[in-house]
């Protein structure tokens, strides 16, 4: 009994303390509580992992039955196996570093206690998601994390754009959750329970489905949830807007932990995915399309956080390519390394913005290498890691994915490699625009304090040694058997070549002759503008889905249907009875002679009827 419940409960305690009494405490104790809770949780994770030793099988702990209805019994039980261990380490580790960084970054922002309580709440939900031993607990974490991203994106309550972005993020996540919950219903209907062990034991004996069967449906619905959460092609629109939130939020939620939940879920449900090749192809294709598209948009963006946001979307695309190709461990491996260097990139960008007093536009930066050298040094590591320069962590995990992709379907490999080149290009573009050349802004940049560049340093080290130090696929071998196949060297060389080519091209265009990008932009003209405006996807969704829904329901449903039709019928019967009354009123004309006449006519008619009837009787 390892008291796994402590891991998520500690951040929850932090949230409750800060939430309830944080308002009255000065900043320092609030930050201490927040960081302490995450640190303790990180410590407890290390303790449990060391206690559990080699996790050949999952260690499950049951606390109480959440609800029990008929045959369905959902218990609050947490489980740890190798996959969870990796995720736990990433979440609590990177989380801790980001919390420390946030102390510095949020020092002079309003609502300090509110920020940290939300961050702790986020940690609680993320840990529940990871530790959950059944789909429902995972779903609890899933939605909880969505809620926290809503709260944190909308942290700057006074900014309307922040509010809108938060609302958008939550609703898009909700659409993803819609898919996830439908998958859960199918699982319960067909397998009778939600516990991973029971479900996967039931699925394993089932044959691989050739055509679209039950498992494919479940897998696809789970994947819809994943796209919602991990911002894949149809539902990625919320991530770029999520940059409205403070940078530590972007780093923690929209780089390291929350967005990776989709990949974790796919890996967790790999048993189902493997038995439905159709679903695997869909995952792969979506991954590759997302990666390519995001990369192209990333190239044209000028806001530094938007660039890194699109890079996250693209990297997530890579992870899904790995899952689609069947190499779940490669996906997780890239997830881990990506967590390190992407968190570093964001936090670095954060300190750059911090240094420039909130300036985020690359065009107003430049030449910061000399002014904030530490940030530049740290960012350089991340830059090299993400571009896939051999030796850095990015190279190892990306190549694993490209190998697996090549193994399953070569065209994905080639698109992946090109995207890798593009990734290298836009990251280096950002670096060159930011740190090289002359300073175009009008702030006087100052270096960020130790509390900020400390964690950056740690992350820099991790993103450098992360590649070969944490050999995740090897660690996850028992869960996901490694694909043997020839480790074809040439593919590695090609990808490295593309990477370095990307960097060189960027160097050529932005450092050697800054005029070239504008020339190319004008040359490409409409295409450039299309890509710059993010393929107008937001506007497309707005026009196709949101506005018809809103106006349609206002005009059609509410005005016509509710007020018009139903109320119309109700009030109509009322007025109709009044009009009939009006007509009958005319009979009371007051003149006795007309009454007499009508009486007579009545008698005559009656007589006729009697006559006829009597006649009939005769």
């Amino acid at each position, binding site marked *: 009994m390892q008291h796994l419940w402590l891991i998520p409960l500690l951040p929850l305690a932090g949230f409750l303390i800060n939430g309830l009494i944080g308002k009255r405490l000065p900043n320092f104790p609030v930050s201490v509580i927040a960081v302490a809770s995450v640190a303790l949780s990180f410590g407890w994770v290390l303790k449990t992992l060391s206690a559990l030793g080699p996790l050949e099988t999952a260690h499950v702990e049951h606390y109480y039955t959440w609800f029990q209805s008929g045959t369905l019994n959902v218990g609050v039980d947490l489980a740890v196996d190798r996959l969870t261990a990796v995720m736990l380490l990433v979440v609590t580790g990177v989380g801790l570093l980001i919390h420390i960084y946030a102390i510095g970054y949020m020092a002079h922002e309003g609502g300090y206690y509110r920020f940290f309580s939300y961050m702790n709440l986020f940690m609680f939900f993320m840990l529940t998601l990871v530790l959950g031993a059944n789909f429902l607990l995972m779903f609890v974490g899933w939605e909880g994390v969505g809620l926290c991203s809503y709260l944190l994106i909308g942290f700057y309550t006074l900014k309307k754009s922040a509010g809108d972005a938060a609302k958008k993020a939550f609703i898009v996540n909700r659409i993803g959750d819609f898919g996830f919950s439908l998958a859960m219903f199918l699982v319960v209907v067909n397998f009778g329970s939600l516990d991973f062990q029971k479900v996967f034991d039931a699925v394993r004996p089932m044959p691989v489905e050739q055509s679209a069967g039950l498992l494919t449906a479940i897998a696809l619905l789970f994947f819809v949830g994943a796209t919602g959460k991990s911002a894949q092609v149809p539902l990625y629109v919320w991530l770029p807007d999520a940059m409205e939130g403070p940078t530590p939020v972007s780093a923690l939620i929209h780089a390291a932990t929350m967005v990776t939940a989709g990949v974790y879920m796919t890996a967790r449900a790999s048993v189902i995915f493997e038995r439905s090749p159709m679903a695997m192809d869909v995952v792969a294709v979506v991954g590759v399309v997302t990666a390519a598209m995001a990369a192209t948009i990333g190239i044209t963006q000028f806001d530094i956080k938007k660039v890194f946001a699109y890079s996250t979307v693209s990297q997530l695309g890579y992870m899904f390519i790995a899952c689609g190709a069947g190499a779940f461990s490669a996906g997780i491996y890239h997830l881990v390394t990506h967590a390190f260097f992407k968190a570093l990139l964001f936090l670095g960008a954060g300190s750059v913005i911090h240094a420039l007093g909130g300036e985020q536009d690359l065009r107003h930066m430049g030449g910061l290498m000399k002014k904030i050298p530490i940030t530049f040094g740290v960012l350089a590591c991340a830059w090299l890691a993400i571009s896939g320069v051999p030796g850095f962590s990015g190279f190892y995990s990306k190549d694993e994915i490209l190998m697996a992709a090549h193994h399953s379907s070569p065209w994905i490999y080639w698109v992946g490699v090109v995207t890798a080149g593009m990734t290298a290009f836009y990251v280096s573009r950002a670096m060159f625009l930011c740190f090289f050349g002359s300073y175009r802004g009008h702030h006087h940049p100052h270096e960020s304090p130790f509390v900020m560049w400390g964690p950056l340093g740690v992350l820099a080290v991790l993103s450098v040694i992360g590649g070969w130090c944490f050999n995740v696929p090897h660690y996850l071998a028992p869960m996901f058997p490694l694909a043997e196949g020839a480790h074809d060297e040439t593919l590695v060389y090609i990808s490295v070549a593309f990477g370095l080519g990307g960097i060189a091209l960027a160097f050529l265009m932005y450092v050697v002759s800054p005029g070239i990008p504008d020339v190319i932009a004008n040359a490409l003209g409409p295409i450039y503008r299309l890509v710059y405006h993010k393929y107008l996807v937001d506007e497309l969704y707005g026009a196709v889905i949101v506005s018809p829904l809103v106006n349609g329901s206002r005009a059609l449903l509410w005005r016509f249907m509710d007020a018009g039709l139903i109320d119309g019928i109700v009030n109509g019967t009322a007025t109709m009875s009044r009009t009939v009354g009006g007509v009958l009123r005319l009979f009371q004309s007051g003149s006795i002679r007309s009454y007499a006449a009508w009486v007579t006519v009545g008698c*005559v008619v009656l*007589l006729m009827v009697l*006559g006829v009837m*009597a*006649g009939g009787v*005769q």
Partner: protein
Amino acid sequence: MDAILFLLFAAIAVACGINLVVQTHPISSALSLIGVMASLAVLYLLLGAEFMAAAQMIVYAGAIMVLFVFTIMLLNAGAEQRKGKSIIAKVLGVPALIAFLGLVSFLIQSLLPRSEEVKFGAFTGGTAQAIGKKLFTEYLLPFEVTSVLILVAILGAVVLARKEI
């Protein structure tokens, strides 16, 4: 003998009826109504309804018509002015009335073809004793109800006709 009597008094009755409708001055129509009632009393006698004939004369002619004559005299209303007698009523009304009567008589004739001859004295059931016996046994309830009705009518008449209320 009965036929002669019937035809005579039927003729009187119809004549008085028409007179009632045609006359302008109400007093003359009142008296023609009394004439109708008297002739009907005789017809009742023919049909063997002695008590009813007497009652007709006493109650109807003697009491009700007196009320009418009183009212007409008291109100001293002149003859009806002949203003705007709608032609339609005249043109449409009279033939319609005749058609109606023709229809009804045809109906009666066809519905009751085998009706029997009416001979004076054939049915002497209508004596006061017979009516009295039936009235106070089988029809006691209607009798009581009509007595209440008349009481109410009296009160009504008194209240309505009083000057100061």
